């Protein structure tokens, strides 16, 4: 398929359709409103269903229902809207159902700002609902990668029976980039033999969610964590940028990593041996990348559009919190290339 120029929010909508999603339930919020806008006109053309729910809470519970019926289903929102969906996400997760949730983050906390942010890391990566659980979290840094990750999210969700959150920000949602759509379904995705499609003359199906006896509930949790262990083993993804001879490594994801990439060009020209580990999955966090490179890295430079929510994960991954330094902007502001270069020089000093 030839490249077209699309806004991130439209492109993720099209990506979902290409991946076979025919159901979207959501509610508008800046800066992701073009996702429902696009799908409201495009889903009916392919026999799909778009519903603007009465609220985010209603939308996520419609997602729960459609997922239980075996559908590929999507919802999207931005930070405060995702906060509202947390209870439903926790229920879908506990039921072991596949669903895809897009979060085009904006500044926070509370109602926050409409400009881009990355301060939902804790809510999304650590789990904003109650109980012991994880959602898979994918973090795209371009419109093309957002497209690819939305497609992959449906496969991962179906493969493991879990919600997958595509965690981007308003900038990825609002910017235009050339994209192409080449969906190739993963091998080995199990049939949804459990789906609630009406018993008829067939077997009884049931989606369980309430396990009321403590021993049973504990066993249930252990079964979930067996699944998480498989995801951690199989699904960690990251990009290594100029790491081969690096003595220092930026750690950054999404939009912030784009600014870092440009800054690395300047720092390399000034003689600094610096690269970047860019997590593409935030849960599972790419521990393997740190295991691979840690021996040669003196310091990690964590750059985020938050007050440093990823820092503990980087410190855990390298097993040395004294090696991790942070620079961030928040509230809807994006760091500039100049300030990242300055931060780099400050940390690396004479360590050229």
């Amino acid at each position, binding site marked *: 398929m030839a490249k*077209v*120029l*699309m*806004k991130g929010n439209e492109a993720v909508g099209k990506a979902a359709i290409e991946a076979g999603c025919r159901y979207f339930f959501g509610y508008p919020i800046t800066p992701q409103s073009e996702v429902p806008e696009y799908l409201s006109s495009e889903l009916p053309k392919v026999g799909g269903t778009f519903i603007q729910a009465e609220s985010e809470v209603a939308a996520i519970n419609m997602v729960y229902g459609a997922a239980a019926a075996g559908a590929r289903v999507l919802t999207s929102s931005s930070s405060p809207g995702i906060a509202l969906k947390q209870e439903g996400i926790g229920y879908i997760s506990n039921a072991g159902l596949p669903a895809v949730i897009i979060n085009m983050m904006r500044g926070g906390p509370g109602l926050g*700002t409409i400009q881009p942010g990355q301060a939902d890391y804790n809510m999304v990566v650590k789990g904003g609902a109650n109980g012991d659980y994880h959602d898979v979290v994918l973090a795209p840094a371009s419109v093309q990668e957002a497209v690819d990750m939305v497609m992959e999210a449906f496969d991962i969700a179906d493969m493991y029976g879990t919600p997958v959150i595509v965690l981007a920000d308003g900038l990825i949602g609002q*910017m235009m980039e050339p994209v192409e759509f080449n969906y190739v379904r993963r091998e080995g995705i199990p049939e949804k033999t459990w789906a609630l499609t009406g018993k008829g003359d067939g077997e009884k199906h049931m989606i369980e969610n309430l396990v009321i006896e403590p021993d049973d509930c504990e066993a249930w949790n252990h079964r979930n964590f067996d699944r998480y262990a498989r995801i951690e083993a199989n699904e960690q993804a990251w990009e290594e940028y100029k790491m081969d001879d690096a003595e220092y490594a930026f750690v950054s994801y999404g939009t912030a990593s784009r*600014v870092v990439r440009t800054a690395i060009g300047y720092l390399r020209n000034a003689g600094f041996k610096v690269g970047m580990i860019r997590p593409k999955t935030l849960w599972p966090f790419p521990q393997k990348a740190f295991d691979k490179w840690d021996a040669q890295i003196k310091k990690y430079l964590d750059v985020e559009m938050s007050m440093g929510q990823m820092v503990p994960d980087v410190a855990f991954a390298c097993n040395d919190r004294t090696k991790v330094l942070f620079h961030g902007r928040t509230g809807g502001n994006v760091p500039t290339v100049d300030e990242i270069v300055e931060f780099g020089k400050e940390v690396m000093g004479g360590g050229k």
Partner: protein
Amino acid sequence: MVTDDKRVRIITGHYGSGKTEFAVNYVKTLREKAEGKVAIADLDIVNVYFRSREKKKELEEMGITVIASSLEGAGVDVPAVSGAMTTPVTNKEFQYVVDLGGNDVGTLVLGRMKPLLDPAETDFLMVVNTYRPNTSTPEGVIEQMENLEYAAGLKVTGFVNNTNLVRETTASCLSHGDAILKEVTKRTGVPVKYVSYVEELLTEDVPEGLSGELFPMKFHMRQAWM
């Protein structure tokens, strides 16, 4: 030449066509070439990012009057426009560029200005990028044009061939857009007035035989890392 266009230039187009980048480049060129007062109005009530009002300070320092929302601040998500938008229409000392929001929805805001507009001194320019899905064929361009004309109550007086793939733009992109727009011109009689492209992106020569005046641009709305 931008100075040959009519006194009030309204820039419209499908969203994502590159209206704002064109409008900002256009008004700067106009400021360099035209005598007297020059104003730009950002009437984008559709987008909340990448609006020309973000360049307010830079443009004002060049001596361009910038009219945006009556509510200050990049974070305001309210479709409010300034009452001052009509001043450069009625005050004929102004050369005026109007940057509309995308699609027919963005065009509705012109209603406030419409009773004051004299068609004889108004150009309604439609920016087209044929790599945008809804304007990728002559039929698509004509459909969008008719929607915009219906919403604005104005006839499109010229196209801007702004066909690009951002940082993957090549000279052949301009030819791609040109072929589609030539067909549109044949069917509608509306000419291509400009071929716009960001100079730093084009490593080859601009192809010969393109309809419209070449209009090289600089990036104003995109950072180096975008």
